[in-house]
Structures are given as C-alpha cells and as structure tokens.
C-alpha cells in the first residue's frame, strides 16, 4: 500500500508526470561517453546535474562513475557558459588528463543557448586542448526526449567528431549496441568473435562500469572503445544499429558522413532478435554460423520447449525504454506469453507502436511519451492484473502493492546486482531472462500452492 495514492480510475492528466518512466537526456549521454576508452564525460550545466547522474549510475553499477561539470553559477547563466567550459577543459586536461572529453549540455546551457561547437573551437584556438587530445560534444536538452535520446545523441556526437572515411574500406562491421548493459556489449562482441567478424562496437562500457576490484582507483578503467576504433568506423563495410531509438541517429550520420551503409535491427534480446543480428552479421561478412552458436540457439529453443507449460498464456505488463520493450515483447510473445500493457516515458513515435503491435496484439494497451509514467502503468495493472511485470527498480512498489511477480529489467536497477555481469542479449542472455521469468512465475506458484499440491517436480 505504499502507492495508496494510485486510484484505479483514470483521470486525463494535462500537465503532470507522476512517478516518471524516464529520466533526462544528460544521464544517457554520460553513460554513452563512458563507453569511450580514456574519456571523461563533462556536464555543461550546474553541479547538481552531474552529481545526480553520477549517483544514479553509481547506484546502478556500483562502480565509481567519473564525470566533470562546468559548475554553472548565476553569472554563467546570465553571460553564457563559455568561460566555464573553456576553464573546465583546461582544468580537466591539467588535472585528470583524459584522452577525450565528451561534453553534453543540460537544460540550463541549452536554454541559455551556448554554442558548444564554437566554444570548443575557441578552447582549441586558445591552446586549452593539449596536442593529441580531443573534445567532442553533443546537445542533450533535458526538456526533449529522454535518457535514451541522450545516449543516442552522444553516440551520434562520437560519429560527428571522430568517424573518418580515409577512402580505404576495412573488413569490419560497426555495431552500435544501444543503451544496454556492459555485459550485453561484451556478449555482442563475443558473438561477433564466434562468427570471426571484426567489429567496431561503440559506445562500449564493458570493462568501464563493471571493472574489477584490483586494489587501485582507476580514473580510466581498461574498457571502452578506443578513439582509433571509433575513428575507423568511417571505413567500415557496414553499420548495424541495434535499437532505433538509441542507435539510428549515429548510423544515419555514419552513412551521410562516411558512406557506411546501415541497417537498423532490434536489440538482440530473445531468440528472433538474436537470429536477426547473427543473420545480418553473417550476410554482411559472408561467413557461416559456427556450430557453437547453433548449439547456444538450440539450447535456448530447448529450454523454451521444456518449460512451455509454465509460460503459456501468462499475462505480462512491461515498462521501460522503447528499444528494450520492442525486443522484449517479441521474445515474450515467442514464449507464448500475452502482453497486456507496455509503457515507456520516452516518446518513441508511431513507428514504435506499429512495430510493437505485431507482437502484442490489438488489445494490449500501449502508452508512450507524456503522462506515460509509472503512475499510469500502475493504474493499468490495477485494472487488469497481469501474472508478471518487468521493468526497472521502481516497479518494486507496484509489485509489492499489487502482489505481482516481478523481474527487474532495464534502467535503473538500484537494488540488485547481476545486470552488470550477465547479459540478457544473445541466446545466452535469452536463457538468463527465461530463468528469471520462470523463477518469478514458479516461485509464485510454489508460494500460492495449497499444501497438497505443493510440487516437487515442476
């Protein structure tokens, strides 16, 4: 009854978000920037933003998250943040010596109207950027899109500043992994390696936000896509953009800027989406799929077949980010589950809804954008109670209040570990998701079983 303030009755809201199912762009940009090796994300705004994003990512990853801020004051907001940023760039290279600074804006600097390209050029001109060092930026107004948009924008910023077409095509494929976990990025790389394909995957936060305890504090952990790799993405044969919302912008720009053709795929969550990724990779690189991957696939299919009776027609409601929801809905429908509700705070457009509709049927309630918040999700779930909900940590209130089995999925997850290390993409990731879903459903069956029907063999 923590959420006693959620009435079942819907009231049309005009101007209000209650318990948001999204957050703002800069945190996504910061996360993306961490996916460059030796990069220090920089928040061009007041201190609080940077602190909040760092705290948020620290809670989610339980790892140190480094980022700097322009520390806006009242002055900056009147006279513009140019001085702050130039000073910041100077200080950062002096003190923290990163390879690259990745600047993102905030609602503040956006509203002021700071011209980041110009400021960075100025810093360059004034010699504040040491030789061999790089500063890139992207615009991430907090009052547009969501954290996913911020991720997409920073990825696009990487292309914009770094990707070069040297005129010499390389035997390599770009993969834009989307706003996924470091474990997922590592798994996508492993799959490509199994296929013997050289890939340039960026951003790549594996080894950055899930780094080992080795007795030292590393300002720049071992992981991340190197500048050289990202530069060379302009010479790649092809780009696979995983997830339209998070990866399309960068892929498009790579095409426009460097002539690298691209294809947008769903995030490789679940069987079919992984099939699609592997199939695309196979075709692009002209390789054959090795037995190892076929075995992984077959194991996933096998488990689905084994456990079908526990999945059949189970009703499920989802909240999260568009790219995740799309792939997840496909997977769940392939598991013979019925999707009742899908809610994302990120405005994802008609294309999203149309794609989703293939997997969820006509009766499913889809909400996106303004007022598509967790309050609305809670109301939906109250009206028609599913057997399972999937979504971020905030869903725990709803799971408790409505007594519904719950699997943590997406961002943020503040109260459990695992997502940092175990992928949910690929066939193995599908197995993991399946294990979690089955665990939640079967634990509930066990809990609710009458004593006489409490079962040993399930």
């Amino acid at each position, binding site marked *: 009854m923590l959420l006693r303030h959620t009435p079942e009755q819907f009231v049309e809201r005009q101007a209000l978000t209650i318990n948001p199912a*999204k957050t703002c762009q800069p*945190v996504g940009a910061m996360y993306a920037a961490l996916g460059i090796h030796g990069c220090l994300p920089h928040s061009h705004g007041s*201190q609080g933003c940077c602190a909040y994003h760092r705290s948020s990512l620290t809670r989610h990853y339980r790892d140190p998250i480094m980022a700097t*801020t*322009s*520390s806006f004051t009242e002055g900056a907001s009147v006279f513009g943040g140019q001085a702050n940023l130039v000073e910041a760039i100077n200080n950062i290279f002096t003190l923290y010596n990163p390879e690259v600074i990745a600047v993102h804006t905030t609602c503040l600097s956006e509203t002021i109207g700071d011209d980041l390209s110009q400021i960075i050029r100025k810093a360059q001109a004034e010699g504040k950027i040491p030789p061999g060092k790089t500063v890139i930026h992207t615009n991430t107004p907090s009052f547009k899109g969501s954290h996913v948009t911020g991720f997409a924008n920073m990825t696009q910023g990487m292309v914009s500043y770094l990707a070069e077409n040297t005129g010499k095509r390389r035997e390599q494929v770009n993969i834009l992994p989307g706003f996924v976990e470091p474990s997922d990025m590592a798994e996508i790389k492993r799959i490509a390696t199994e296929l013997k394909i050289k890939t340039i995957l960026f951003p790549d936060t594996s080894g950055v936000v899930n780094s080992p305890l080795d007795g030292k504090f590393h300002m720049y952990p071992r992981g991340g896509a190197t500048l050289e790799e990202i530069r060379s993405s302009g010479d790649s044969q092809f780009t696979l953009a995983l997830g339209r919302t998070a990866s399309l912008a960068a892929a498009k720009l790579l095409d426009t800027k460097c002539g690298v053709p691209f294809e947008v795929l769903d995030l490789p969550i679940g069987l079919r989406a992984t099939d699609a990724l592997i199939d695309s990779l196979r075709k692009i690189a002209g390789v054959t799929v090795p037995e190892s991957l076929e075995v992984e696939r077959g194991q996933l299919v096998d488990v689905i077949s084994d456990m079908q009776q526990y999945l059949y027609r189970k009703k499920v409601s989802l909240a999260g980010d568009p790219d995740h929801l799309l792939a997840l809905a496909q997977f769940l429908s392939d598991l013979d589950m019925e999707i009742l509700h899908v809610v994302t705070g990120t405005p994802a457009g008609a294309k999203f809804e149309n794609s989703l509709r293939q997997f969820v049927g006509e009766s499913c309630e889809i909400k996106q954008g303004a007022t598509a918040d967790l309050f609305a999700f809670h109301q939906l779930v109250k009206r028609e109670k599913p057997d399972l909900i999937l979504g971020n940590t905030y869903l725990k209130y709803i799971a408790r209040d409505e007594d519904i089995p719950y699997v943590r999925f997406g961002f943020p997850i503040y109260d459990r570990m695992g997502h940092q290390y175990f992928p949910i993409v690929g066939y193995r990731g599908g197995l993991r998701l399946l294990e979690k879903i089955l665990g939640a459903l079967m634990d509930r069956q066990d809990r609710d079983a009458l004593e006489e029907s409490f079962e040993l063999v399930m």
Partner: protein
Amino acid sequence: MIEILEDRKTQVYENRREDSAFAMTCDKGSLAGSVSQRACVFCGSRVVLYPVADALHLVHGPVGCAAYTWDIRGALSSGPELHRMSFSTDLREKEVIYGGEGKLYCALTELIPTYKPRAAFVYATCIVGLIGDDVAAVCRRVAAEQGIPVIPVHSEGFKGTKKDGYAAACNALSQLIGRDDAGAAPEIGINILGDFNVAGETWLIKEYYREMGVEVVSCMTGDGRVDEIRRAHRASLNVVQCSGSMTALAETMKERYGIPYKRVSYFGIEDTASALYEVARHFDDPTVLKKTEHLVRREINRILPEIQGYKAVLQGKKAAIYVGGSFKAFSLVKALRHLGIATALVGSQTGNSKDYEVLRQLCDEGTILVDDTNPLELSRFMKEKQVDLLIGGVKERPIAYKMGIAFCDHNHERKTALAGFEGMLNFSREVHASLKSPVWRFSPTRKS
C-alpha cells in the same frame, strides 16, 4: 604523480598542531571541470523538505530533477507517505519557449484536490529561473483557490551551492511556521531541526527527549508533518542537528519568535550525551536533568562493553572521512577514536573556515583536511595515508571498495540508525563488519 590544481591548493591542508597561519579556503564554488562530489541548490532544498510526509512536493522543471530525487532517501514516515511519490511538471520544449506557468497551475490544480495534501512545496529548477516563470504568483493563486499553503521553493540549481538550497528550504519552512496558535504551548518544548529520520533516527532521538520529559513540538525534517511545523513557534528551544542545513531557520526563528537555538550532533557517545545535557540544562529543570543523567548513564553502560570489544580488534586502524557537513565530521572523528581508529583524512563538501579550524584542533598531527575534494585527490590521499576505512556517501563507496578499503555509509543511503547511543552501536558494528570483512584478503594490494 597526480597534481593538485593550483586553485585548489588552499583547499587541502596537512595538519600541523602549531599553525598560526592556518587559513583553509572553503565555502567557494567548485572549480569548473572538477569531479566535485557536490550537488546543487535544488538538491539542498529537496533533501531538507523531502521528509515532510504529508506535503505535496512538486518539482517544476524537466523530468530529470524529479526522477533523480524519487525516493532515493530513506527518510522514514510513521504515517502518510505522499513524499515518496514523484510529481513533476515535466517541462518540455514548448514550455521552455512559451513559459511554464500554465502547466504549473494546471498541475497543482490537478494534484491538490486528488491528494488533499496539508501543504504543497513547489520547487523551481534551473530552467524555471531562466524562462522567468513567476512561481510565487502561481503559488499564491493556487493557495487562494485551494485553501492550503502552496509554497514556492527558490531552488534554481545554478543559483549557488547546496547550502543555498538549504536556505531556500528554511525559507519555505519559515512560511509555514507560526500559522497555528491553537492550544497551550508546552512548558518544556523543543523543535528538532535537521534530523531527517534516515533509518528511523528521529524516532530514536524523540524517544530520548520523551524519556527526559522534553516535549518535541516538531521535527520539521524527519517524519515531518505540516501541522507540526505550523505550530513550531510554540517551542521554547530549537535543537539543530546538521548545522549546515538548518541554522538559517533557527536564526530566523530566533529573530522572529525569540526562540534560542543550540547546535548539536547526535553522532557518537560524547556528542549525543552533550546534546541531551545541553537541552536539559537549557530548561534548568531538576527532574529533566535527573532523567537525562539516568538516561545517559544507562545507555552508555549498555553500549560501552560491546564497543570496547570492537575497539580491542580495531585499534590502530586508520580512517578517512568525507561527508557533506563538517559538523558531522567532528562527531565522526570522535566516534572513531572510541573505536581506536585514527582519522588520517577528513573533509566535507560544505564546511566553512570556522569548521575547519575546529576540525584542525580536533585532529591529529598529520591528518589531511580537504574541502570539496574529488575522487582523484581522495584516492591519492587514502593511498598515501594507507587508510583502512572510508566514511562517505554513495559516490565514494565504490572508490573505497576498488582500493580494497572498508567503507561505512554515513549519508542518505545508510540502512541502520547511526544517531544516538544505539546509533553508535550500529556504527561500531558497521565499521567492524566492513573492516573485518574477509573480502579484503582477496584484494591484490591489501592482503591483511
């Protein structure tokens, strides 16, 4: 070797006992480009007002400010939990261009009839300051229409530091205070200021006062209630914990209602004891004094043996402290001493120069003092000083762990009450648990 920025050199100090020239630079904005652990004005206001559980807290701004502060703090309520909902006007591009007053008005008029809060706080965020919404006017209008206090909190993020946010919050609270004069004022009555009831700490402290015969008129910021705050001026003493955040309000109340205040800390044995004694002495009532003596004696006797046990095991360990407020830092240095642990490094986000002087006096020769530090400095000094334990908050925790250093959370995310006598016991246990965790055996650099 890592350098300290020229500009920051005066914010770092290695203690020498006899140092007449000590002048810690502090109380200044973080440098542009530093990995500061500090937050913003909004953060300060939000943290202070958050525990008012039966108020509506509406964040007027883009969604992020509301999202990042949604129930991340364990400020417990014994009743209503409206404060744990996240309400935001979720300003979008349209409002940035055309202004957000309409949306704000609309949001408030949708919310208040639905949730019937006792009051509403409306937090202005960065952008609201820029687009020029007249938040106060909207609040006045809604207050008039809905018949509850609707209080603007001027917490635009860039308009200063977290401290300014505290001030804005104090200002907002002061608008509630004095609105209810019904009933008799208690003879021996206090307000608790600046305790946030994290992990139920306020409940602990209140229980002490109850036992002492001191009535708590309001605890504004811990398990807070609007009606209590409205009556807060009926108390005859303000007891201020977390001095950084609430001294401003105490000053205001002193001016406005002539209520004196005392700055105290409930962390550690001495500080808790002297806090209670100070309050008791203030009222100069023999019964209260006697009860206080009895309470303090009993509690110390209860907890000391266990603490002595930990001390025997922990003696000689070295700690680093990096917390938000400096007053807490004082207490921690003393509390650690009780456990045989020396403080090799101590710093705060918001200390002032007086605070640092006190700290200097309190600390051993060689202890490093830092103001508004960053991870690089922090880790460097922890390594240099071979520190075994860090006391800090969420952003410091993984830094300590990566270095194989034990950690105790003394910030919003602490899970056990660390205030009061019981809190000292919990603190000792936590410190002991982390310092003695077998996991450090597996850190490459700290096989112990």
